[in-house]
């Protein structure tokens, strides 16, 4: 299990048209990886994520995505994900097909994916229009009680990308704190890329901690700060100010495009991205 640069990992394992899940539920969101995908100009991706917030707002606005599978898409505590909104509302920069679920449905779909079952079941979508607009939401009858239960098809992304606190030199990965559906999304994927805050000799993981063994990880890249402006427990906290500021940046096409051009396309990598933000006095 090789430790490579993020650029190498994306170049090697993310292809145009792939289904790609960048997971992390407000915590450990792989922002650096999302920006590297923008930087390398991937197109036609099927983006999968429970909460497409700023990371997918950037990728959708930059034109990477053709489809989005999700259950909540906004700027948490702030408001809209303007780029995702505009893609859905007016097809800019390109139309975005959506497959919309509830959180419980997405979670069941990842869980089924990790278990390599073709579908997951939940007592869900009851009385909602979600089941109407999303043909993927179906039903099975319980062979014991006769109850009808909702089903969702398993999610098995071509690539899942996670950000974690630590990997050891063998490539075992430790995730701690708010876990979201990261383990399920990681194990459901055909390829798993993990960016980490640091590579250490010993994970020092508690016995029942969430550890992804090296042999399920396709590649690891050490990207300190790679979850910013989200956070990495034990390393840095959530940059709420950036989330609030993003509302203005993303509201306007031109301003967003300039931001991507200057900070993402105009920089060689995540360190360059941070350096330019700092040079402009807006960096963490």
């Amino acid at each position, binding site marked *: 299990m090789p430790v490579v640069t993020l650029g190498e990992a994306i170049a090697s394992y993310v292809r145009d048209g792939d289904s790609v899940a960048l997971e992390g*539920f*407000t*915590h450990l969101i792989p922002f650096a990886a999302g920006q590297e995908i923008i930087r390398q100009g991937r197109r036609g991706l099927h983006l999968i994520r*429970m*909460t497409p917030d700023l990371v997918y707002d950037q990728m959708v606005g930059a034109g990477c995505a053709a489809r989005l599978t*999700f*259950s*909540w*898409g*906004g700027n*948490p*505590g*702030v408001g*809209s*994900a303007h780029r*995702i*909104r505009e893609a*859905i509302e007016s097809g800019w920069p390109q139309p975005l097909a959506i497959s*919309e679920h*509830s*959180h*419980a449905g997405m*979670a*069941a779909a*990842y*869980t089924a994916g990790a278990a390599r079952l073709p579908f997951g079941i*939940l*007592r*869900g979508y*009851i*009385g*909602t*229009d*979600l089941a109407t607009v999303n043909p993927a939401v179906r039903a099975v009858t319980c062979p014991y009680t006769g*109850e*009808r239960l909702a089903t969702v098809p398993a999610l098995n992304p071509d690539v899942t990308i996670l950000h974690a606190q630590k990997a050891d030199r063998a490539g075992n990965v430790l995730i701690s*704190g*708010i*876990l*979201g*559906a990261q*383990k*399920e999304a990681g194990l459901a994927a055909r390829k798993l890329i993990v960016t980490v805050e640091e590579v250490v000799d010993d994970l020092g993981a508690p016995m029942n901690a*969430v550890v992804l063994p090296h042999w399920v990880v396709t590649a690891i890249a050490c990207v*300190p*700060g790679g979850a*910013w*402006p989200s*956070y990495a*427990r034990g*390393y*840095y*906290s*959530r*940059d*709420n*100010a950036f*989330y609030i500021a993003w509302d203005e940046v993303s509201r306007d096409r031109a301003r967003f495009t300039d931001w991507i051009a200057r900070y993402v396309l105009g920089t060689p990598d995540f360190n360059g991205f*941070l350096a330019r933000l700092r040079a402009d006095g807006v960096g*963490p």
Partner: protein
Amino acid sequence: MTVRAATPPWTADEMMTVTAARMLWNGCVCFVGIGLPSAAANLARLLHAPQIVLIYESGTIGTRPEVLPLSIGDGELAETAGTVVPLPEIFAYWLQSGRIDVGFLGAAQVDRFANLNSTVIGPYDRPQVRLPGAGGAPEIAAHARQVFVVLKQSARSFVPKLDFVSSGGFLTGGGARRLCGAPGAGPQAVITDYGILKPQPGSDELALVARYETVTAADAVKATGWPLVVAEQLEVLAPPTAAELEVLRALHARTQIAHSRPVKLPV
């Protein structure tokens, strides 16, 4: 002796938050959303319900944040939680299992049967306004033993027909919910900036049952997109006490400071 004023010394948000907080009891297991519900639940914890169990969908169980989270997964929620579990577990083992006493929801639109829309304004395929979407709400609405909805009242938000049903309340009313297999009792109160609406027995239609003393029933009817039923016995809600406002404002002040703290990455 209560103050009566056109513009009282508290905001509508404060009045709604205090009113919602008063409806939570000590030991109650509460599934909390971001924003006003989170403020209300934590206000209750800091006042009359120290043993309230707060669960956020990010997997934090029994959390006791010092400051309010901006996001559903702020570090503060994890650091002060009794335990932090994977997200699929929260929905399967903790919500679907029927362990939640009160689910707290907001929305963009509500109809007379307390169905909620947080998905789209206009047609789903050609939206005027694409909203963030349902998130955890559909299953919170289905499984929590009861649901409290918090939403400012206006003809634009309290509509005769939803553009999209994101979360089921009483569906078409008249007991329809019981037939659809949703285990929970559904929305038992809608807390607005005019007062409290509750479903009427039999019809399941929302009726105004309580008002703030700063407004009239007529004001509430005017702010509703359907002919709002007003209960014969219309309760008048006590205004926020000085203690309630002090604790709430201190909480918001702490939150303000925490959220404006600049973040520095370890370089």
